[in-house]
């Protein structure tokens, strides 16, 4: 019964943020996703490369919406995505005949690896999963996936974060580099 009583919660939830924080989060995410999406849809559409993946949306929440979180720091953003991408591709190549297993082992191992390297970044789990669930274009990239879209996209978003977050007077980014 202790097991179920642990689910009771009861802790104090944190306070909400003010209007200025909401506004800067919105602006940051807009300016961060725009270049990556633009690359994907307008500039290089039609070639065999992918420039944007779902996990970038998740990263945007952290690096533009929760800039003080340890999960949003550059080391976590870049390290988490890269490590997870590598693990995701390996999981697909090893276990593609059994996609449900490949999916689960990709995400689980990505989390363990991010914890070990102190690069825990929630969108990393998505990056690993996307390497397995595809599209076909992504499967065809193989390990190039790690550099493009993952590496390139993440660096573009990081540069935007460094600029926009520090333009805001109430913000400072990053808290730490290493």
């Amino acid at each position: 019964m202790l097991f179920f009583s642990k689910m009771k919660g009861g802790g104090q939830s944190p306070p909400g943020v003010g209007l200025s924080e909401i506004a800067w989060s919105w602006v940051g995410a807009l300016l961060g996703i725009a270049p990556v999406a633009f690359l994907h849809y307008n500039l290089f559409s039609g070639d065999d490369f992918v420039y944007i993946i779902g996990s970038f949306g998740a990263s945007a929440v952290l690096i533009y919406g929760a800039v003080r979180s340890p999960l949003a720091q550059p080391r976590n953003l870049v390290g988490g995505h890269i490590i997870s991408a590598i693990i995701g591709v390996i999981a697909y190549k090893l276990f593609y005949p059994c996609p449900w297993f490949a999916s689960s082992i990709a995400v689980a191992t990505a989390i363990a690896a991010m914890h070990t390297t102190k690069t825990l970044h929630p969108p990393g789990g998505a990056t690993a999963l996307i390497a397995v669930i595809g599209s076909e274009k992504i499967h065809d990239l193989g390990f190039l996936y790690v550099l493009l879209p993952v590496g390139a996209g993440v660096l573009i978003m990081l540069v935007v974060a460094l600029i926009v977050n520090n333009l805001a007077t109430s913000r400072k980014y990053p808290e730490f580099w290493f």
Partner: protein
Amino acid sequence: MKFSSLNECTLPISDEDIVQAMKQIPGYLDITPSDFMEVYLVAFGQAMSRLKKAITADQIMTRTVITVTENASLMEVAKKMADNKISGLPVVKDDQTVTGVISEKDFLKRMNDDHAPSFMRVVLQCLETAGCIAANFKNLTAADIMSSPCITIQPHTPLMEIATLMDQKNINRVPVIDDRLKLVGIIARSDIVQTMC
């Protein structure tokens, strides 16, 4: 408001303390040590303010007060202070109303001919004249050298007010009186420091 060492109680918590604490708590704590430090310092300051307003004189005062009467000889006063190891005490009338306060400072002031009290000046005079000036005190009473009228407070006075009062008036003790002006307790500087820290 002037802040002095009485009004600030810095509990030194270092970055290392925080990191060690985080290591001891199992699981991932989604806050950076520096953010925690920031929250901690603000919350601590807030708690201090709250307590300073909530705690009142009657909660921390010493109720058994050592006193002397107005016509007590200075020798009696000195003996009481020496025996009890205190640096000052209130002077009361027979009905327990407070008329003044005597402290070491008052003795020193008298020994320095009412110039700024200085223990070393007294020592100097003792050495120079080979006779101690306190000798002519023998005939004086408490009423002669006490500080009067003295500052008193009521039992419901909050801690913050008492600390500020001691800072501003440069006093080390405050007698606490009830609404019939009778002595009910005393608060010393050390009581404040002990409560706040």
